[in-house]
């Protein structure tokens, strides 16, 4: 695996290196795909969006501004693609009914139930709260990195994240996630 940093790879892609672009795909496809998946809730759609994101990144690579970090750029493109998709495709199907799973499950069942409830809970939040929570707790970004990706001040990131946490907490309570605790 190449040890080159993202911006070096971008530079090489612009100069015509397709192998550098492959390295970038390897580096980001999993996180992008999973983040999109949590946003849209459908594997095939998530795959399509992820592919579109990388195609778009490739097409726009020439206009990349090197004073920014590549990851914030690609995440921003991914978020925009996903939000556009959500706008034009309102939810058609729900995930598996998590409520159908028994509350007194064993460990594996409990994790599966928690995961489904989390998916559902996230999908009940406004899109920008969902994005913030995913960037922070799924992509493990710092406040500064989220601020750069979403192009909003760090202060706003903190306050919105606080609100998003509160709301998710309430949703999870309502869904009975903590009933057995």
């Amino acid at each position, binding site marked *: 695996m190449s040890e080159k940093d993202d911006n070096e790879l971008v530079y090489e892609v612009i100069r015509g290196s*397709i192998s550098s*672009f*492959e390295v970038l795909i390897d580096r980001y*496809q999993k996180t992008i795909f999973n983040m999109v998946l949590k946003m849209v809730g459908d594997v095939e759609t998530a795959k399509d969006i992820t592919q579109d994101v990388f195609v778009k990144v*490739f097409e726009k690579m020439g206009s990349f501004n090197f004073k920014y970090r590549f990851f914030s750029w690609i995440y921003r493109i991914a978020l925009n693609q996903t939000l556009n998709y959500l706008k034009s495709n309102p939810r058609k199907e729900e995930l598996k009914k998590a409520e159908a799973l028994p509350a007194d499950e064993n460990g594996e069942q409990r994790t599966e139930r928690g*995961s489904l409830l989390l998916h559902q809970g996230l999908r009940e939040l406004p899109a920008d709260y969902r994005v913030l*929570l995913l960037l922070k*707790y799924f992509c493990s970004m710092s406040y500064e990195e989220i601020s750069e990706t979403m192009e909003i001040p760090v202060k706003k990131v903190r306050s919105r994240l606080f609100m998003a946490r509160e709301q998710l*907490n309430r949703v999870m309570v309502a869904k009975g996630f903590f009933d057995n*605790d």
Partner: protein
Amino acid sequence: MTEQDHNWKSIEALFDAERENAVDVDLKKTILNQIDMETYKSQEKKPEIKVVRSFWSRPVVRYGLLYILGVFTGLLLFTFAGSDFKKSAPDTSAMKGTLSSSVSFDDMKIADVLQYDSPLARAICNIRYSNKMVEIRLDFSSLYPVKSTLEFESNSFQVINIQNINVNSQTTTMTASNFVQINNTGDNKLIIQLLNKNKLPHDIEFKIYQNDTPVYQNSARVNKE
């Protein structure tokens, strides 16, 4: 730890589990297949943009042409308008306060040349005039101090200037509104210039005195026409 914090810890643990159990995908082939290879090629072999100016649009050529055109136009103007320039030179005779606007002494009209020749003194008083000015050139020689005057009407003439071309230190001149007095000793040349105020015919009287008695008196008429 509050209940809310405790709850959030549980949710965070769910996020961690999600991250650990993230679905692995390999979309590389599909992505590369989707990439427009034309875009790729164009990125790969981005031609360098060369600004090639046509010969006529090069700054050197354009400014050179402009310069030549300017010189040519200047020459044309000078050739055609130059002669008119001479012809249409303004009539400076009407200009006030400039001696240079007056015609030269040689081009002036002759009023008269008054001459006096005696053992006492010798004088040649050449009086000429133009529309603007009267100029008197006086050659005066006397062994001893001799007084002479040029008298005129103050309504018609006004002394502009008395130039002593060749005057020794013993000779003095004095002006008043209607006469110029010269106390001459030795050989002197003077130029007296008067403003020709109304261009009407008037006499200028030239007198030479001995013991305050005129020994010579003559006049010249200017503005005869």
